């Protein structure tokens, strides 16, 4: 108890300094939580686009981005007839632009696609979609920023399309996207095939056999289960690495703040540390008081950072332009990792101060102060 008091007394003795240090860690943790959660949410949303109503995805082997993947129509037609396959949907991804919006994601899909079949229709309906032609279904947010509604013609890229309906989804990409009949999209993007084929199997346990058959019959294509794809897709990896790198830099800055605080803490109480030595405190016990201080700062900062991060995410969710893009769910594992990282950063920041404290010679400290 007195050991804890020794730690707390020193933190409370310099309240402003302690507060600044905690704030440094808190902002770092909040930044990390926000960036990682937003990017993980974005990755999750993109994954959910791919996995909409399916379990597997087939795409061109060795492409750096799915936008560049080209899966022949013949492959789709063949795969759809395999006994283990319940359903196969060709999806073409493209990027289109309008006057004020240089990037709008475009989905070329068939009328049987789950996005169209299971959509919540704000206006219009799916019936005309099967007829094909220059028509589009708009995500609710896309309709909003394009200023379009059902029945209107909207200029997209170098063409004009008739809006047959507006759908509401929980996915930010889809909500801000444009859905075209597959043939229209192929024509628009000058492609004969599709970007991916999403696959639903009769039996999930057939996945290995399905992958093997794709590898045998279509060596230029690769089949991955949805979770497997999310883990291995290079774009996702880059996004996740970026998020952790940005968050890590923030945390490192917070750690430097803790190190600065702890150095000041040790320098301003050399005499007190000498007193502890004279009273029988071993090096380990002296170091424990220093590490204890930094651990309290780091954990308090981390908890405050989690709260700040959650507030920031809820605030971002309410920004109209980000509607549907921000997933405010902070995974418990992420919370644990961030708190542990903050703790490790705090302890690392206390290494030098602790080493310095252990070298203090009581006879000199008590004689000259």
């Amino acid at each position, binding site marked *: 108890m*007195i*050991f804890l*008091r020794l730690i707390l007394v020193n933190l409370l003795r310099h309240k402003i300094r302690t507060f600044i240090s905690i704030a440094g860690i808190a902002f770092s943790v909040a930044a990390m939580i926000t960036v990682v959660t937003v990017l993980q949410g974005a990755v999750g949303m993109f994954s959910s686009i791919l996995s909409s109503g399916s379990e597997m995805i087939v795409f061109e082997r060795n492409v750096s981005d799915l936008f560049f993947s080209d899966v022949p129509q013949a492959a789709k037609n063949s795969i759809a007839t395999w006994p283990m396959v319940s359903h196969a949907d060709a999806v073409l991804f493209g990027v289109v632009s309008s006057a004020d919006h240089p990037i709008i994601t475009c989905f070329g899909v068939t009328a049987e696609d789950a996005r169209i079949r299971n959509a919540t229709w704000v206006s219009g309906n799916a019936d005309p979609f099967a007829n094909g032609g220059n028509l589009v279904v708009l995500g609710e947010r896309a309709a909003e920023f394009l200023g379009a509604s059902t029945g209107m013609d909207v200029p997209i890229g170098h063409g004009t399309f008739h809006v047959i309906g507006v759908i509401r989804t929980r996915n930010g990409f889809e909500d801000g996207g444009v859905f075209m009949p597959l043939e229209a999209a192929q024509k628009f993007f000058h492609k004969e095939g599709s970007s991916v084929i999403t696959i639903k199997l009769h039996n999930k346990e057939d996945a290995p056999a399905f992958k093997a058959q794709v590898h045998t019959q279509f060596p230029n294509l690769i089949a991955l289960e949805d979770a497997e794809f999310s883990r291995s897709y290079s774009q996702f990896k880059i996004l996740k690495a970026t998020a952790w790198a940005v968050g890590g830099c923030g945390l490192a800055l917070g750690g430097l703040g803790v190190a600065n605080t702890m150095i000041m803490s040790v320098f301003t109480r050399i005499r*007190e540390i000498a007193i*502890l030595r*004279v*009273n*029988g405190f*071993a090096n380990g016990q002296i170091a424990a008081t220093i590490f204890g201080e930094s651990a309290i700062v780091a954990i308090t900062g981390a908890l405050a950072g989690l709260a700040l991060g959650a507030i920031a995410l809820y605030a971002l969710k309410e920004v109209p332009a980000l509607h549907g893009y921000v997933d405010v769910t902070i995974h418990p594992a992420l919370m644990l990792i961030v708190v542990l990282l903050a703790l490790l950063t705090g302890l690392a920041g206390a290494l030098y101060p602790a080493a310095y404290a252990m070298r203090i*010679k009581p006879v000199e400290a008590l004689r000259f102060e």
Partner: protein
Amino acid sequence: MTMPPQSDQVPVVIRASRLWKSYDEGTISVLNGVDLEAHKGEAIALCGPSGCGKSTLLHLIGGLDKPTRGKVLVNDKELGRDRDMVHFMRHEVGFVFQLHNLIPDLTMEENCLLPAVAAGTPNAAALSRLQELAERTGLRHRLKHRIQKLSGGERQRTAICRALMNRPGILLADEPTGSLDEETSSTVFNLLLDLAHTESVTLLMATHDRSLAAACDRVLEMHDGRIRTDC
């Protein structure tokens, strides 16, 4: 070599042999071959002018510093060689300084319990010992008070309590009354002497106050880093 006048039967607790201490590569010489023996329960006053080496001698005996040459044996074991210094500091020696060297933000109770915390003494035993010491030093009513609230004499009595917390065999006091007025000095000194005797502690006290020194079992006069007389 100085010898205790009162008894050859009582065991020697401290034996310092040919102690030298110098600083700045030998250019400043503080102790020049000090020999000293102190017996169990003996109270010894170290007198002498400022800079004669009293404090340095106490530091060497207490293990706070190392001699340039010579050795200190406590209960026949050499400091820095045969002894675990952490154990020595925790259990065998207590310090009282001129400036009380208490931690101002802690209470009197917490300051006194520091050696017990360091030694890992069970809480009940530590509190019982504290009650006993607080009773004897008349500080029981001050246990929960912060150090800033205590008078100079109370602070020094607190420092004595702390020094005796782990029942050390040796108590080293460096000008313990140097910052107190005459009346308080006398009170604190008598308390120190009384506690040392009743707990059979070997007391080495550096002091300028001849009248206080005279109350000790022996008085050692130091000059130029040597013990000149033993009376």
